[in-house]
């Protein structure tokens, strides 16, 4: 882990229209007006859990992703690209968190990270973070240890269940790794053609890349002082215009901390639905 330099992102200042929209959602004399991309069921469950929606928040960053040459016959991480993609996501997240902070929210749930490519911008990637900011009705603070609102990609249903189980979300943690998979040599190709065998070289490369992404995600959770990570997902993508041997592995999950609850979590009831 020593060589992993986690890109640091400063607190962000919001564009003018964002500040204006947030001021209108806060309203005068506490007359809040929320917007939320939660479904009706999620909205009701969040209220049931003792929270209110503060507003739909977002952040974005358009990033020029350049080129890093991988050695044709080497399995290796492309560190510059890894850092660039990480940094771009962090920028989008930091802006979203800032919007939630300005709204006076305790956290953001249902966070989605999207990567857009636009026809007008070759090698430009747009990273967008979207979610619904919420705050506790009883005025208790649920913010992350850093003092900023917590972030989480859990749905309203999962959030409700997580709280019932005595855990609270801390932050959306992520790790990535852009990896160049070596091309096979001609000799290697001849020796394996027609045979059924494991391609140790490729296995190792993809295994390493996934492990690196996961490890970095865990490292983030540890720095945040969390007890664990739930709902981890790993995505594999190649972004526009990349050589087919270059892949990004991206691990994302929600880090959680236990908190004392008065009642034990409800035990499930078995139902048979009449839906097909």
């Amino acid at each position: 882990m020593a060589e992993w330099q986690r890109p640091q992102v400063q607190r962000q200042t919001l564009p003018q229209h964002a500040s204006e929209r947030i001021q209108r959602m806060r309203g005068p004399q506490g007359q809040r007006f929320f917007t939320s991309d939660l479904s009706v069921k999620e909205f009701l469950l969040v209220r049931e859990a003792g929270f209110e929606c503060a507003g739909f928040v977002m952040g974005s960053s358009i990033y020029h992703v350049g080129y890093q040459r991988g050695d044709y016959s080497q399995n290796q991480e492309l560190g510059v690209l890894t850092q660039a993609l990480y940094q771009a996501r962090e920028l989008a997240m930091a802006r979203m968190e800032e919007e939630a902070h300005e709204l006076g929210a305790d956290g953001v749930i249902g966070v989605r990270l999207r990567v857009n490519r636009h026809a007008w911008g070759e090698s430009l990637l747009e990273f967008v973070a979207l979610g619904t900011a919420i705050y506790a009705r009883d005025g208790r603070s649920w913010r992350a240890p850093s003092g900023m609102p917590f972030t989480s990609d859990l749905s309203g249903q999962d959030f409700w269940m997580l709280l019932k189980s005595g855990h609270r979300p801390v932050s959306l943690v992520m790790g990535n790794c852009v990896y160049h998979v070596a091309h096979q040599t001609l000799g290697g190709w001849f020796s394996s053609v027609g045979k059924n065998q494991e391609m140790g070289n490729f296995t190792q490369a993809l295994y390493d890349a996934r492990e690196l992404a996961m490890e970095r995600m865990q490292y983030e959770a540890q720095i945040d002082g969390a007890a664990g990570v739930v709902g981890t997902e790993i995505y594999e993508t190649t972004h526009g215009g990349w050589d087919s041997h270059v892949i990004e592995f991206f691990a994302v999950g929600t880090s959680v901390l236990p908190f004392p609850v008065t009642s034990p979590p409800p035990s499930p009831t078995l139902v048979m639905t009449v839906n097909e």
Partner: protein
Amino acid sequence: MAFTSDLTIDEVLLIEEVGFEPVELVLSSSYFHIGWQSASWTTNTELEAVSALMLRARQTAIHRLVSQASAAGADGIVGMRLDIERDGHSAEFTAMGTAVRRRAGDGKAWRDGHGRPFTSDLSGVDFWALVRGGFRPVALAHGVCVYHVAHRSLAGWLSGTGQNMEMPAFTQGLYEARELAMDRMQTEARAAGSTAGIVAVDAREGSHGWDSHVIEFVAVGTGVAPIVDPGHEVHGEPGLVLGMRDDDDERQDLDDA
């Protein structure tokens, strides 16, 4: 009286459960010529005339739908959908939904701030959940911002190649465009009498056969208000149930927009 509706059986049952009945399937359309507003090749700017037009085309279709529902004696529309079909420089905006009426005759309390039937894209199931949760839908609100993204100069392009860096002018432009669309949606919802907020917001972007440097940002959501009737029955505390079905895991893919 016979009714028509595109709701499923369970949706009809749930709507009846909260005191409504379907009246008829309503359908309307508006046909618009989408003109053009020129923008400087090198600026990031909103195309205000096009934004206004794209909003007016949607509002016209919805307004006609509401008039039909009103004429049929309905108090609201559920399951509303708005489709856009483009044909060259023209586009047809079609709105469709099921008009519903309050059985108890207290339908006035369910109408929007202007006394018109409420509009909502919620399904029958979501409508039921919302009403039992103590809220009523008021209006399906839209916000639109059509934005022109600058072309990059050759010098700018050359200096950027090979480098990994944020492009602040582009970030700022698109960020502002999204915020404007959401802000306009909020303003429309409030004006229609949604006092609590907006649920189920969908923030989309698209292009309607324009130059690739022109993007339309649209925010849509159902504005809601609390139900003030003290006799209104709300649902109890949710329980944890284990369904006897193999549900597909409906996790969203992070990278697929």
